[in-house]
């Protein structure tokens, strides 16, 4: 938990330090660099994990509701 807070503060601080211009985002615009799901079929993996595990959320998938699952 403490590590998470430290990382949060570091990234929040970084927001004021780094500005990458649009023409410098060649690598960042690569489809595989996308934060989160890179393809729609990733939903199936996230869904079966939500069914078989107690944890949900913070991954763009089900957080609870919509199914008779945990």
């Amino acid at each position, binding site marked *: *938990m403490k590590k*998470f807070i430290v*990382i*949060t503060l570091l*990234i*929040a601080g*970084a*927001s004021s330090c*780094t*500005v*990458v*211009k*649009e023409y*410098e*985002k*060649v*690598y*960042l615009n*690569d*489809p*595989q*660099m*996308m*934060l*989160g799901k*890179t*393809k*729609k*079929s*990733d*939903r*199936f*993996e996230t869904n*079966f*994990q939500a*069914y*078989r*595990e*107690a*944890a*949900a*959320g*913070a*991954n*763009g998938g089900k*957080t*609870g*509701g*919509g*199914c*008779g699952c*945990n």
Partner: protein
Amino acid sequence: MKQITFIIVSLFGFAGFAQQATDSVATYKKRVLETTEVDFLASYYTQDGNNAAVSGGIGTEKLTDVTPTIVVSIPLNDDDVLTIDGGVSAYTSASSSNINPFDGNQPADPFVESTGASSSDMWTNLTGTFTHNSDDRNKIWSAKLSVSSEYDYFSLGFGGSYTRLFNEKNTEISVNANVYLDTWNSIYPYELRPFSENGSGLNSNLFNAHTITGNTNYTPIFNEFSDESRNSYSLGLSFSQILSKRAQGSLLVDVVQQQGLLSTPFQRVYFADVEDSFIENFQLADANELLPDTRFKLALGGRLNYYLNETFVFRTYYRFYNDDWGITSHTAKIEIPTKISSKFTIIPSYRFYSQSAADYFAPYEQHLSTDQFYTSDYDLSKFTANQYGLGVTYTDIFTGFHLWKLALKSIDLNYHYYERNTGLNANIISGGFNFIVF
């Protein structure tokens, strides 16, 4: 003085006219979505294990599921997109067949699936999402409506999100909220049904047609739920930041409050302090699962992606989860997309998951009849899981292959193997075809 005043007023007038002239010049705005896109998706899932919740923590967990889905994204204008998402999930399950283990052609047994009607079901879903982007593409809001249904469960969901980009699109903050108003159509273990308020108990047809062995004075606790509603409310926040020309990361928080019928009505529980009763090889339930009617969940996640070179990208993910049922979990995942050509990318992945047990969980025959809440669902037990995956993606930016009015943009195929240290293992093959309409 009058001349100076006249000149100054004239200059403001010209300035105003110039500003108006600037506003009237049309500026180019790239469409959010150039043309309609259609995705055909499908998955095939199988699992097996020996801790079926429907038979109190023992018995086969064999299950097969096929899920075809179609997603259509339609640009309404330069700024707005409407997405329609529809799918079905058809499954056959040895464990759900044992909701009524006495309707098959062979002796009832938790390790053998019944061939009766309860062995299969179908879940259907339809979701519509409307997304609006501001002219500068720095503000995005969306609204969503979803409906899903299966034999024993109906869900109505709605939600929305707002995303703000700033710092020359280096920083992104997003908030989303969802509400699900769900309803069970409770199905109970077959041998418990005669013990409802107006039931005939041991004089029912089941007990007249079959002989009880072991404890013949069978008197279970039947938790019959009068309120079958189940509502979920979630709020999510995310913060994304470009860290360098090759790295970007994000932090995510989801909080969820659920209330209503959170037990699964057809899952059995056996008590250590109650003598066992059997019909054939199947142990009759001492009770059906009973869990609290509220649950609060908190999930904190983080992602970090790094572009190493033209061949390798590193994608990492971590999540911490905690809820008020006593469950704490950790998830860690790494993917390494590897470009092997301009069109093909292979994606090996590894995921580790661990969770503690819910306060109300106990294995087969370890609950007491005096417990306030009880479950033997191993999805709520303490376990660790490893998942190994391999995916391949084919992308053709020139969409050379055409099918009627559809041009193929990409194909992806994925395989994952999942195993828990409780003995459950699963395989999933999934994939999709992405077309653009021309």
